């Protein structure tokens, strides 16, 4: 590679690496706290710590409704993330190929769902989905509602990335006989992969974490945050910490294992 990559011995790079470390400490600190208190016997998380216990995990395992809500959340978040990324990509890609006169207006329209307070949006959607579309309160309602604000989100992210993909690449693919879809598959998708991954991850996260709209429209199939929210009426309970800890440890393990094997594959 270039010399730019070899200059890493400079102190500037060391400072930046230290910064990455500190940033991750900051990002992971609350999770560490959550994990610590999930193993603490006290009902209320406050210092000093009490005895070590795994009883919260045991309790958690017995709560079928809670586990059900984890499943619901996974279904919702995965679906929302997928639909949003697809819709967002289609929109962003269309915007790229045609200079819309009212582009700013369109973008404003796309940003609008993010500006409405979730509480109100949830209420409006509840009334709308129930009375106008007579959609029963269900996971479908949650998926629809979350996609409302996740899809524009994905659109903006992907659009920002697509702007950096040179148009001549597309022209070349097209010239070589690639159809629309093939150009997208062979060229656009790989080249804007970081944007797509970011969009998918962020929309997944937003949906997985959203509870107000979900609370309104989820009906009898609460998502995890809704479940947690109702469980927290009397203050947070360590079982909730235990869920947080499990979700985190589980996803982190998957990531590390996946990365290990992917890394092996690319090195080999």
């Amino acid at each position, binding site marked *: 590679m270039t010399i730019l990559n070899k200059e890493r011995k400079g102190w500037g790079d060391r400072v930046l690496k230290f910064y990455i470390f500190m940033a991750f400490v900051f990002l992971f600190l*609350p999770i560490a706290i959550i994990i610590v208190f999930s193993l603490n016997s006290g009902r209320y998380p406050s210092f000093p710590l009490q005895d070590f216990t795994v009883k919260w995990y045991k309790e958690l395992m017995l709560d079928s409704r809670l586990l059900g809500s984890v499943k619901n959340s996974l279904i919702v978040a995965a679906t929302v993330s997928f639909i949003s990324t697809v819709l967002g990509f289609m929109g962003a890609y269309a915007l790229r190929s045609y200079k819309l006169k009212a582009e700013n207006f369109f973008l404003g329209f796309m940003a609008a769902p993010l500006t409405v307070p979730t509480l109100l949006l949830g209420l409006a959607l509840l009334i709308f989905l129930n009375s106008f579309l007579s959609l029963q309160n269900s996971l479908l309602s949650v998926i629809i509602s979350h996609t409302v604000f996740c899809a524009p989100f994905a659109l903006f992210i992907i659009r920002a990335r697509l702007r950096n993909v040179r148009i001549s690449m597309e022209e070349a693919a097209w010239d070589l006989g690639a159809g629309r879809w093939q150009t997208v598959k062979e060229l656009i998708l790989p080249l804007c992969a970081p944007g797509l991954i970011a969009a998918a991850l962020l929309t997944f996260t937003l949906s997985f974490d959203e509870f107000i709209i979900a609370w309104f429209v989820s009906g009898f199939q609460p998502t995890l945050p809704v479940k947690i929210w109702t469980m927290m009426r009397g203050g947070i309970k360590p079982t909730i910490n235990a869920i947080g800890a499990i979700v985190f440890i589980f996803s982190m393990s998957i990531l590390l294992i996946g990365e290990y094997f992917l890394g092996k594959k690319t090195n080999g």
Partner: protein
Amino acid sequence: MPDQSSFKIEKMVKFRNFPPIRFFVGILPISLWEIIFFMLPVLLIFIVSFLIVKELRLVFQWTLANYTDIFSKTPYWVAYVRSFRLALTAVVLSAVLAYPLAYAIAFVVPARFRRLLMVAMILPFWTNYLIRAYSWQIILANNGLFNEILKVLNIIETPISILYTHVATEVGFTHFYMVLMTMLLYSSMDAINRNLMEAARDLGAGKLRTFFEIIFPLSLPGLIVGSIFVFIMSFGDFVAPSILGGGKKPVFTQMVVDEIQGTVNLSMASALAVIMVVTILIVLILFLRRVESITAGSSTG
């Protein structure tokens, strides 16, 4: 044979060659989704904001009362300004914190670790927002981790009050929005052709100048989108301002939440929401117009 009129195509950027069928295929699904599942419900809100609530029931009686009410009550405006300030602060903070992080990941970290870091960064946010917020409480409270550590280190004697001030709110905001911002910035920076940095260095730009002249402008699309998101989302959030900020100095969304949750004044809540949405949208569209012209050149390589 193409008719002459179809050649007036200068408005289209590249690919002006393609009639907009494809364009509609791309743009329609998301537009329809938003029109059906967003515009229509919001239209409801809009209509409701011109009605009144009596005895907890909507009364079909057109009125501007909600709006005149809002304009006449200063607490709303104080809260509005506060929301605006907090959101702007959140934008600045998360940008300032995220930028070096994205930069470091894009340009300092070896390529094979980049994906790992990007995904690892988002994982803490798969635990619930509320749990995280309470976690921050534990850290920031008077008898919390932060103050205890400072005490042990003999830096302070009496605890610093952070929890239940908007400093804590910003900590809560920054925690997530910094990651959001980092992801967007990274995805922009990753696309920068490294030759350009060499060229800038060759022409005598130091690392700093190279950064400001090349990397920064080319990462602007990401920064702008990130700022828009952070602004809107922090403006609309009420969890961090309530749980961490303490609610003593309520932000605008807390007022709206109160109207729904505490007092069930749906029409008032709708009116508040309408005001909020409209102002944000106006700011946004004006902002986008300026920004699009600034970053227009960087679109094609």
